[in-house]
């Protein structure tokens, strides 16, 4: 049996999760920084989990140290740096910044619970992909190595009590063959469903650093959620000004072009990508478009709407348009889209993102439909 401290530990982890949930908005606006690249765990600093006490303020207190140096030399560095490795029991004082690790799955779960995101019903053919065995249930047969001792004795106790042979003064419980319980595997069939997310972003002169930061942060959280929903996910990136091209992730968030904006160029490229690589019958397709709402001309907007109607909408789960507010953008494209599809359209989701704090609500708008 596990040591009781494991229960304390689990309890602590739950409190931590609760804290993350409470501060989700803050973490979301910080975005990507909390997950190092290529890692599937993320770290959040958590300063306030310590039990509050009457204690001295740090700054006015100062302290004493040892070493060389002139008056006025800084003593900064981590407190306790070079501390001895010998720990004494019962000494837990001192400020400690807690860094908590959490897996990406857990984070996605918290995001989903907090935003009340529905699980996505995937479309497309459900190929039988694999069976997974998880030892979560209890059965009456099995090998000795999987014997569930506690349950076995519980059964034996139940039987003895009901048969009236249990003597509390002499609490002997002897399991017989019938009492044996074994851990048993639940076989789960996991369906293969694949998704592709196509991000399109306007990188014309009017999209500044701040706007791109918002797109970057939002796409990070969208990816996080979709990854938790699909086993297999591909992400493609398109940037456009007057012309569109497909780029790597890094480039997507870093380039800054200038010049005009023809949104249709991106939609055309998106269409090409889908046609070439992703059969809509098998893939769940998510095109996302981010811009500041300026398009070159009303004519081009017409082309865009046509592309949407004829190809993109019929072939994708939903089309999402996020309009990032910028000083230069007119926001016309949002108006055009909402005129055409309304705000309640089934597979067109429109969202205005005013600033970093609005990211959370925007994510909810995009993913709240469970498609």
């Amino acid at each position: 049996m596990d040591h009781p401290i494991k229960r304390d530990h689990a309890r602590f982890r739950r409190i931590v999760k609760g804290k993350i949930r409470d501060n989700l908005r803050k973490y979301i606006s910080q975005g990507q920084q909390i997950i190092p690249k290529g890692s599937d765990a993320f770290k959040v600093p958590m300063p306030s989990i310590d039990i509050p006490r009457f204690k001295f303020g740090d700054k006015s207190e100062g302290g004493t140290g040892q070493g060389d140096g002139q008056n006025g030399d800084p003593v900064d560095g981590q407190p306790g740096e070079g501390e001895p490795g010998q720990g004494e029991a019962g000494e837990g004082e001192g400020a400690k910044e807690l860094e908590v690790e959490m897996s990406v799955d857990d984070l996605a779960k918290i995001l989903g619970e907090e935003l009340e995101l529905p699980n996505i019903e995937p479309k497309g053919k459900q190929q039988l992909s694999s069976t997974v065995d998880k030892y979560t249930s209890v059965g009456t047969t099995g090998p000795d190595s999987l014997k569930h001792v506690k349950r076995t004795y519980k059964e034996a106790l139940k039987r003895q009590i009901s048969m009236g042979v249990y003597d509390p003064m002499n609490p002997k419980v002897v399991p017989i063959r019938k009492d044996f319980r074994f851990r048993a595997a639940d076989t789960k069939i996991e369906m293969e469903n694949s998704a592709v997310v196509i991000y399109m972003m306007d990188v014309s002169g009017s999209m500044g650093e701040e706007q791109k930061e918002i797109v970057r942060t939002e796409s990070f959280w969208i990816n996080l959620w979709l990854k938790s929903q699909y086993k297999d996910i591909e992400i493609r990136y398109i940037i456009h000004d007057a012309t569109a091209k497909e780029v790597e992730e890094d480039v997507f968030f870093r380039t800054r072009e200038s010049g005009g904006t023809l949104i249709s160029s991106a939609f055309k490229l998106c269409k090409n990508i889908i046609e070439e690589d992703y059969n809509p019958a098998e893939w769940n397709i998510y095109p996302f478009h981010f811009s500041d709402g300026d398009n070159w001309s009303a004519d081009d907007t017409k082309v865009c709407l046509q592309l949407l109607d004829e190809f993109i909408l019929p072939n994708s789960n939903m089309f999402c348009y996020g309009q990032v507010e910028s000083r230069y953008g007119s926001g016309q494209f949002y108006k055009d889209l909402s005129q055409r599809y309304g705000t309640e359209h089934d597979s067109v989701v429109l969202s205005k993102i005013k600033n970093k704090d609005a990211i959370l609500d925007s994510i909810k708008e995009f993913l709240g439909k469970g498609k």
Partner: protein
Amino acid sequence: MLRTKPISKELLALQKKVQGHADDFGLDYFPQVFEMCDYDTINILAAQGGFPIRYPHWKFGMDYDQLSKGYRYGMQKIYEMVINTDPCYAYLLEVNNWLDQKLVMCHVYGHNDFFKNNMWFSNTNRKMMDVMANNGSKIRRYMERHGVNKVERFIDRVLSLENLLDMNMLFETQDVKKSRFEKELAFREEQEHGGYVVDDRSSALKSYMRAADRKESLQKLVEDDEASDLMAEKNTTKGMRDILLFLIENAPIEEWQADIIACLRNEAYYFLPQRVTKIMNEGWASYWHSTMMNQKVMDPSEFIEFAKKHAGVMAMSKKNINPYKIGIELFRDIEFRWNTGRFGKEYNSCTDMNAKENWNTKAGLGREKIFEIRRSHNDISFINEFLTPEFCNRQQIFTYKYNPRTQRMEIDTRDFQAIKQKLLSQLTNFGSPIIEVEDANYKNRKELLLKHIHYGVDLDMQFASETMSNLYAIWKRPINLATAYEDKKVIINFDGNEMKVNNT
């Protein structure tokens, strides 16, 4: 749950050898038991303050989380752990090499001697393992009865007040003890009238029950006699620093809550002597591991590795004083001074620097002196009496403070008086602010007024306000705290909803 093992035959032989040397050097210790455990177990034990069974609480889980991560990433490693009990238990780590085990054993005998002989430990309960285990099962029972969340939340609140202790409680004189014993006897008699069953309830809980009785009889008095004199009761709590005891006796709480406070208070007092003798205790143990290793136990081939390990433990830091380092150096300095007769009127009034520098009366009193000091001092008196300007200079000690202009901590001064002052103020009241009860019926509205005895350092207001809201949950009436903030005298008030700072 027993995850520790007895130590091997070889280690037992080593223990016998080390113990023999400890005897030769005149150390006086409790029977010493070493047990072997793996790193996970030692992390568990360390998270629980050295004890195998504690009450359930997430803070142990948090400490365990940190310790095991620290170990996993190679940031830190616990070499040893020793608990103040009789017999004295110490845990060795399985993965440590032979030299580590030698070093740890020598170190542990130093701690053991200190636990047994230092007078601040004279009243600690040496059967604390049992008490902790009992507290654990009591609190588990309360959780079953009242709900885990409810009890845990209450514990959170009590822990938030855990450092509001009265150091004098550690060192009760015989007279005090005697009068307490008499009171206890009187209470027993009272019990027979009151119909209480004699049992193993903690003395603090009994004192709660006594207080409840007193209130009742007082109530009767009031009813019987129109002349109520409640004000007399008020004065008895003024100046009380044992806030937890104050709450047990005076707060409107249920019996289980009083019992939980009593359990946690008991544990906090158990750990208190270790907090007021940190420098001495570690210094003393380090002095003995160093002395015994160098003179007796170490194999010549182990010299380099030992020097490296020892230096690691003694590492100096600019941010804070390493108690191991200051402790051992101070003991050595004292030994040297008393060996060469550098003390007393004649030495102190000598003005010839050259003579002072080479002073040696061959007094040879050093060893005797340090044994005497380990018996009768705590960190404050230790520093106060034996810190010298020469010592500070040699140890390169300085004070630092925050410079608002550069927004960083900077070296302030190497002046002896300033250093001593700073060290003493850091050690005062084991590094916690001194908070005492001023008025338990403030404004005649049953509000609580606490007083922070301000010695120049402000409280952390964020923490203070959270602590007060926890206190409010127990006291159930507004909490007031008289303190000073940014050179102004203020009374902070928490009325259950919000914090207000009033200038006085």
